[in-house]
């Protein structure tokens, strides 16, 4: 089922969103192509993917994806900006007219930031992370620092969710009040309420905490209370110790009460009464990870996680990995993990080895993953995949890549997937008009580097 958002643009569906994309394209053209001296700046990225794949019933598909995100800053005032992110898919080979295209608006909002008190107002489709909230909302989000180290945030609107069949109106709102002693601790109290068809769908209250009492000791976590069931749904806390010389220890303690945690879902997957999982079960998770930086280029880590259920028994997941990375031009990794559930059906061993090398403007990657199931699935115990990828940096702002993935698993005897990827970065703020026309942002800035997801070493890979 499609998103039931009430904002007019979403109500009118794909056509309206395509129109928005068209308007966006026009906006981009008007901003990038002319050599304007306007203070307005535009930064963003276009990623185009062409993927060849096969579905479980043997149907071959050739979808073309366009992911576009951009930020228009300094709109009139330096403190006003517009953020946009979304994607379109067009199936080139298969599919009837109704299913050939689809799209999603990830976020699109106008943002105002005040120069004092970290006051911020966002209006549009926004992603809210505030205490118990981790929600996409079509509405308003406001945040400000108060006097005496207090802070306040609030949001409200229509929840942007997928897969809901619940009819009627829906709304979501919430708030978080925080107090901090900078550098020492921060504590937050948060509240969230979501209604569907004028009935309570979610009502959550929470406490979040971050404490650093002394150097090399950091405790953080969150407890959430299900106010509809009047019970704590989950507690999740991390204790980080170190670094001690080259060693860092990270301890996780989590408790989840299934009955109170899996509420307010829009998917039947999490209706545990229809699954083999007992909906009244509770799980305690204790985990430990020791990371050792052996040299500037080599890191080793060991991790262990123990699951103790009130009803289902016990399980554990443990293993280790070793990674090598040098000057972001060459790297390799090896990891071994074991999942040990209560029965053979819940056991597997996972092996992974990868390597990458950058030579000049060219990057080459190889990645092999093998999963050995303790009990065969569709008569297959050994599932593996081998991926080869290569990319060429056409210019500082444009990169062309391709990858091939061959795999054998319980669903496919032989599965071959390919993908071609073209990324284009544009940034008029940093590069001036001439460079903007070439779409060339400055290399090496933190903004650019952090536009890429983190590596396992926490290091953004160059060129993404």
């Amino acid at each position, binding site marked *: 089922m499609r998103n039931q958002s009430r904002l007019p643009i979403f109500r009118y569906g794909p056509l309206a969103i395509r129109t928005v994309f068209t308007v966006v394209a026009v906006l981009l053209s008007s901003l990038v192509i002319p050599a304007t001296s306007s203070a307005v700046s535009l930064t963003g990225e276009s990623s185009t993917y062409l993927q060849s794949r096969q579905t479980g019933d043997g149907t071959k598909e050739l979808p073309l994806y366009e992911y576009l995100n951009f930020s228009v800053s300094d709109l009139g005032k330096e403190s006003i900006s517009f953020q946009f992110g979304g994607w379109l898919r067009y199936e080139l080979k298969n599919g009837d007219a109704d299913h050939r295209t689809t799209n999603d608006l990830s976020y699109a909002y106008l943002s105002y930031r005040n120069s004092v008190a970290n006051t911020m107002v966002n209006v549009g489709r926004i*992603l809210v992370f505030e205490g118990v909230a981790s929600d996409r909302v079509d509405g308003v989000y406001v945040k400000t620092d108060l006097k005496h180290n207090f802070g306040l945030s609030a949001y409200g609107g229509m929840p942007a969710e997928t897969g809901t069949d619940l009819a009627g109106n829906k709304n979501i709102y919430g708030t978080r009040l925080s107090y901090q002693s900078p*550098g020492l601790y921060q504590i937050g109290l948060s509240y969230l309420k979501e209604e569907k068809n004028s009935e309570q769908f979610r009502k959550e209250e929470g406490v979040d905490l971050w404490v650093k009492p002394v150097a090399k000791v950091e405790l953080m976590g969150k407890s959430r209370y299900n106010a509809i069931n009047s019970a704590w749904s989950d507690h999740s806390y991390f204790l980080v110790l170190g670094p001690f010389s080259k060693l860092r220890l990270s301890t996780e303690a989590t408790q989840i009460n299934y009955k109170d945690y899996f509420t307010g879902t829009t998917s*039947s*997957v999490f209706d545990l009464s229809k699954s083999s999982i007992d909906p009244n079960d509770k799980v305690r998770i204790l985990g430990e990870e020791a*990371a050792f930086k052996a040299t500037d280029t080599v890191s080793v880590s060991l991790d262990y996680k123990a699951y103790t259920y009130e009803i289902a028994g016990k399980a554990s997941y443990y293993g280790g990995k070793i990674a090598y990375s040098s000057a972001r031009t060459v790297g390799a990794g090896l990891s071994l993990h074991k999942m040990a559930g209560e029965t053979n059906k819940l056991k597997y061993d996972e092996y992974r080895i990868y390597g990458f090398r950058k030579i000049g403007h060219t990057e080459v990657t190889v990645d092999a993953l093998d999963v050995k199931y303790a009990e065969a*699935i569709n008569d297959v115990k050994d599932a593996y995949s081998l991926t080869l990828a290569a990319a060429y940096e056409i210019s500082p702002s444009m990169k062309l890549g391709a990858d091939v993935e061959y795999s054998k698993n319980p669903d496919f005897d032989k599965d071959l997937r390919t993908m071609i990827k073209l990324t284009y970065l544009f940034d008029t703020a940093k590069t001036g008009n001439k460079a903007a026309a070439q779409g060339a942002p400055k290399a090496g800035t933190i903004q650019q580097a952090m536009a890429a997801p983190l590596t396992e070493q926490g290091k953004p890979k160059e060129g993404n």
Partner: protein
Amino acid sequence: MRNMTIKLGFLLLLPVLAVVLVACAQTASMAARHPVEVEGWPVCSECHTDGRAAMDHTADFGKRHKFYAQQNQQACGICHKESFCSDCHANKDELKPSDKYKDSPEMSLPHRGDYLNQHKIDGKINPAACFPCHGRQNNERCKACHR
């Protein structure tokens, strides 16, 4: 009746807003963008001594990043673009993050390889780990089997 309730709600909000405005701190806001260019991965503690010092992006930071985001999303935005979050925290994406970044195997991304079968085991061991991403969002493909 409902409209009246909404109007009353707005009227009650006005004095609350007034109180908030009066109570607002007068300290300078944090920078919208990081003022200093940083090469490579950030070790925030090299310069910062307040809460930001804890945001060193160490190897295990990915597992803990949610705690920092829920307390101070603005700090994340100094360096990260919103698309950085939505690459994984998607509403109804069709491409797995690990498919988008196959050329970056060192990234810690979920669902590599044959995850279709693996998820049947992981989902039973810890279904709560699936819930934050698939409980209310990005679950259209789940319906293909979970009807």
